């Protein structure tokens, strides 16, 4: 019977080309708008490190002076250099790393390649195993190299391609700022979306080009980037160890989500000790958030994207209402034929099924065109200068969802009209033409 109803639906479309085209177009527009905005939203709001995101925690402490203090308020978004180095030395987590952003000049050794400014991350040894960075060549550096302020560097694949032509550059020298560094590793294609480990840099941007040990970066007084928040006089150098400034991100990996409670207690103890030693003024106030909690708290998805998502849904809803009306008109216009079919033995449920098949077929056609429209929409998004623009692509899952959504939406829209159609009483229709 399904094949029969499909056949009938197609014939009906051929007879009412304009009306059918309008219905298909309406659904296509709604689906296109909805899928475009949904794809962008999904890309931006996903879990950047799903296999580990509940075991990675971001540390926040409250080291500022009492001035401006409000009980219960959120503590500083980053930690001071002193706190970061102290926590790192105590090693209470399974793995831990401090990090911040920076900018360095890279001077390739090859002729004809001018020096350029590269985005950098100054961090410690555990960064690479903690975040499971995929390595193309070599590895990260060791804790001993951190201690020794070794002049070692890990490059991104893009940098390696640009400077070394993509070859295995482990062991090679690279001039960074005014010093020579040895390459120990190259990171493979990695673009965590969003770049969760630093909420104060371009959250959806590309990976840093160069990774250097934090200790080395301070040794060489390399330029930093990101947000720096000072509450006191930093005596001219806000990056020195005792500066009253927060500018460093501190991440810890724990054995399991359940270990968070114990680690939080540890942070409270640490804060109490700092207050006892006269360094902290405020009551202990710590935060320990896992990856998704941090993203949620920082409202990582831009407001505009969320609003566009709601617009997409609103548009789809209006298109669906439209379809309900047009389907109602289409079915009831054929009351005569429905009456005949009922007289010839069709039960109400058969009429209902026939109408739903027709609605679903329109949905399928609308889904195909809607898919084309969303590809167009995503292309338009990719032309925007936003840093997340190039991530706006349809993946197989969303492709399938497009069709499912189109068919489900049109069948839903067809429920009311189909129900009304099946109520058509056979007796009345036959006499009055």
């Amino acid at each position, binding site marked *: 019977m399904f094949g029969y109803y499909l056949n009938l639906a197609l014939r009906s479309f051929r007879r009412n080309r304009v009306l059918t085209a309008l219905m298909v177009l309406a659904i296509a527009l709604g689906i296109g708008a909805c899928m475009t905005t949904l794809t962008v939203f999904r890309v931006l709001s996903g879990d950047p490190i799903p296999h580990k995101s509940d075991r990675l925690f971001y540390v926040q402490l409250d080291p500022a002076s009492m001035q401006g203090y409000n009980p219960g308020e959120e503590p500083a978004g980053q930690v001071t250099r002193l706190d970061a180095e102290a926590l790192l030395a105590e090693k209470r987590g399974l793995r831990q790393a401090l990090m911040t952003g920076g900018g360095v000049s890279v001077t390739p050794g090859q002729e004809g390649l001018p020096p350029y400014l590269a985005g950098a991350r100054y961090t410690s040894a555990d960064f690479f195993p903690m975040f499971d960075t995929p390595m193309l060549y070599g590895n990260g550096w060791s804790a001993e190299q951190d201690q020794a302020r070794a002049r070692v560097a890990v490059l991104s694949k893009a940098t390696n391609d640009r400077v070394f032509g993509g070859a295995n550059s482990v062991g090679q020298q690279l001039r960074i700022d005014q010093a020579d560094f040895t390459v120990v590793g190259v990171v493979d294609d990695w673009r965590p979306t969003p770049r969760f480990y630093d909420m104060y840099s371009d959250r959806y941007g590309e990976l840093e080009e160069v990774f250097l040990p934090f200790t080395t970066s301070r040794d060489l007084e390399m330029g930093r980037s990101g947000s720096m928040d000072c509450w006191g006089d930093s005596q001219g150098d806000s990056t020195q160890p005792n500066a009253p400034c927060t500018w460093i991100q501190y991440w810890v990996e724990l054995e399991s989500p359940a270990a968070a409670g114990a680690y939080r207690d540890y942070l409270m103890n640490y804060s109490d000790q700092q207050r006892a030693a006269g360094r902290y003024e405020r009551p202990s106030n710590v935060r320990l958030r896992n990856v998704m909690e941090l993203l949620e708290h920082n409202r990582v998805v831009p407001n505009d994207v969320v609003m566009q998502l709601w617009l997409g849904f609103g548009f789809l809803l209006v298109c669906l209402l439209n379809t309900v009306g047009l389907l109602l008109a289409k079915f009831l216009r054929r009351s005569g034929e429905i009456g005949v*079919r009922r007289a010839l033995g069709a039960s109400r449920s058969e009429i209902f099924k026939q109408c739903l098949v027709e609605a679903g077929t329109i949905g399928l056609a609308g889904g195909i065109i809607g898919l084309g429209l969303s590809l167009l929409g995503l292309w338009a998004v990719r032309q925007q200068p936003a840093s997340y623009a190039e991530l706006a692509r349809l993946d197989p899952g969303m492709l399938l969802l497009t069709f499912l959504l189109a068919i489900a939406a049109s069948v839903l829209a067809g429920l009311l009209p189909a129900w009304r159609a099946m109520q058509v009483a056979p007796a009345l229709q036959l006499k009055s033409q």
Partner: protein
Amino acid sequence: MLDMRQVAKVYRTELVETHALRSLDLHVGEGEFVAVTGPSGSGKTTFLNIAGLLETFTGGDYLLDGVNVKGLNDNQRSRLRNEKIGFIFQGFNLIPDLNLFDNCDVPLRYRRMPANERKIRIEEALSQVGLGSRLKHYPAELSGGQQQRAAIARALAGSPRLLLADEPTGNLDSQMARSVMELLEDINSRGTTIVMVTHDPELAARAQRNVHIVDGMATDLSVAPGLARAAHADIAAASAEA
């Protein structure tokens, strides 16, 4: 075949109660050709709708081919209608989007018949009514008489036990009307029971038996055609006096 006992049908709205049928008794035996006559508003349309299971009734009993219709739900009535009854309407009621083959196909589809069986039956039915060469034609391409014959083929394709015809020649000129009536008589001679509603006494005379419905009740006029006309006048006079 068709056994109605004291069937009543009341239409109720908020303000008005209409008794379309009151205690209708009507029996049609297998293989009979019965004409149902009556003035307009007498309830013959209602009778036909009930006979064809297109409407429910409010009182009495109706047995169709031995099956008691009361208490059947919509699905069951649809099945019964599909398998046992063939309809012929005054306005033909062919589906304009479908060609003759597909029109005849409709009732067979609802019976979930396999494709080759449907093909055989349709081709046979259409050739029986003389339209075997026009399988692919659309209703709009045919004359009124041909359309009605196609509708009859549609009714026949399912081998119904009972044919219900509502003014089958009402929209046809006299020549086409004659050929349709001949077809109906031919079908009846092969054993199909036919109940035909008509207001034309000449057509009614071609049936074996007449039933007259007036004010929702039936009177049997199983007499010879010529006398039937006189009996009509008597009864009309009787009810006018009453």
